[in-house]
């Protein structure tokens, strides 16, 4: 029984990271109807920013938790800059073009950023220092919930609650929702749509950076390519939850994270009931993308999205 709980928690941890990245996809899609395929790269750059900060501050004698906070903030600021610049360079000039053009531009941006980090760093995995200290009080249950698990869960929950409050209650948050629902009307009421789009990229990128730094500290190694798969998974999570829906992205990430552990969970379950069917864990990516295919076939609007109705 404990094993299943362990797998559930491990799934939630990974899912929380997917959620953080998926929010960027879904928010950008909500505003400009673009799947920003370079978003995974922002997550990767966030992780590298964390690495650089940890390297610079490693010998300073600061407590690791302090370094983690600085790494998170630096990653957020840096990635927000990347996100806004990316929008200005690669998407804004194409805003009036057909929808395929910015999509291709996004893929180009993704390849560019990957190779840029490849050149600036190295193609090998580089070790990432453990920035999350071991908490003593977790020792009795550390096989279930380690300290980095706890930090990831707490930080991502706080960030998601904060984002929800921002979107629901603040003037700019409401302006973001209004712009997503009707850009022309938002313009007619004096909302600076360009500013709202920049803000969206800024927030989405900062969230991805949090995910990047946290997961890098959790897994202990990064390279220039980690954004590719994580980006695809997060995109799947966003579609699963309903692209354009913010609670959808959060839920989609968590569901996907847990679902990816299905091969292990099922194998254990079969073993428990005496069947000798072993599903290798390598199938976890297949599970994720099968889920994407199924959701696209049976519920294209996602778990929490609303069906696309074009009003006449």
């Amino acid at each position: 029984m404990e094993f299943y709980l362990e797998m559930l928690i491990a799934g939630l941890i990974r899912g929380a990271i997917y959620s953080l990245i998926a929010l960027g996809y879904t928010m950008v899609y909500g505003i400009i109807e673009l799947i920003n395929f370079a978003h995974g790269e922002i997550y990767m750059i966030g992780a590298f920013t964390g690495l650089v900060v940890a390297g610079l501050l490693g010998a300073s004698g600061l407590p690791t938790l302090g370094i983690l906070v600085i790494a998170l903030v630096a990653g957020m600021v840096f990635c927000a800059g990347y996100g806004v610049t990316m929008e200005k360079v690669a998407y804004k000039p194409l805003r009036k073009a057909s929808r395929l053009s910015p999509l291709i531009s996004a893929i180009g941006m993704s390849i560019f950023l990957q190779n840029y980090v490849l050149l600036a760093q190295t193609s090998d995995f580089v070790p990432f220092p453990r920035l999350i200290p071991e908490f003593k009080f977790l020792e009795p249950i550390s096989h279930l919930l380690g300290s980095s698990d706890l930090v990831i869960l707490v930080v991502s929950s706080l960030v998601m609650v904060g984002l929800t409050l921002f979107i629901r209650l603040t003037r700019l948050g409401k302006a973001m929702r209004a712009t997503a629902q009707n850009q022309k009307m938002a313009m007619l009421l004096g909302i600076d749509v360009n500013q709202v789009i920049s803000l969206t990229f800024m927030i989405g990128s900062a969230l991805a950076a949090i995910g990047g730094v946290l997961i890098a500290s959790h897994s202990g190694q990064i390279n220039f390519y980690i954004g590719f798969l994580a980006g695809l998974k997060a995109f799947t999570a966003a579609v699963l939850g309903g692209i354009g829906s913010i609670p959808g992205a959060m839920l989609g990430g968590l569901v996907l994270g847990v679902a990816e552990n299905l091969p292990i969970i099922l194998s254990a379950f079969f073993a428990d009931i005496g069947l000798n069917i072993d599903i290798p864990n390598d199938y976890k990516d297949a599970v994720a993308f099968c889920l994407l295919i199924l959701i696209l076939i049976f519920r294209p609007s996602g778990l929490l999205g609303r069906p696309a109705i074009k009003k006449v």
Partner: protein
Amino acid sequence: MLELRAVNTYYGPIQALRDVSISVAEGEIITLIGANGAGKTTTLMSICGVVPPRSGEILFQGRPIQRMAPNNIVGLGICQVPEGRLIFPDLTVLENLDMGAFMRKDKSGIKADLDYIFTLFPILAQRRRQQGGTLSGGEQQMLAISRALMARPRLLLLDEPSLGLAPLIVQQIFQIIRQINAKSNTTIFLVEQNANLALKVAHRGYVMENGRVVKADTSATLLADEDVKKAYLGM
């Protein structure tokens, strides 16, 4: 207060407005009537900066605005209730109204205007927590007008406020338009297909055909004009 001088506006290669000149005095209600595709909506979109003119001048209180961004134009006190109302469907009625006041910082003034709107349209007060998309067509039109009023505009542009509404609701909306004009001296630029109704509310009218202004006169004269009668009043 508002003056369009020889405005030419294009959608890509297609010319939608040809040398359009219109002037509106402070406190006036003027109407622009014409058939579908005559360029009425384009005129409003040009004023608001959403479809900027290629040539010509638009002056608001003596100041050229034809090159300004839409948000800055709203800041000057021009607000539009667009055709089709364009309510934010997933925002509540209250949030929709909040968005109308997006450019304003005076909290007490906003509160006072909100109270005024709720006396104007009590139904909106009842439905304030409801999502905009759940309102009926008439209620949405009331919300759209109220949202624009929340910007406390000096010039209110109304695009086809009667479209798709029951006659009784249309009467009510036009009465409110008169009231807004009389009470807060808001200048009103009304675009309508229902020429009869529009000319009865407005002080002066412009008739538009194929992107050109073909007639401009007082409402009374236009209502008596044989061509206007034949073409727009169905007489």
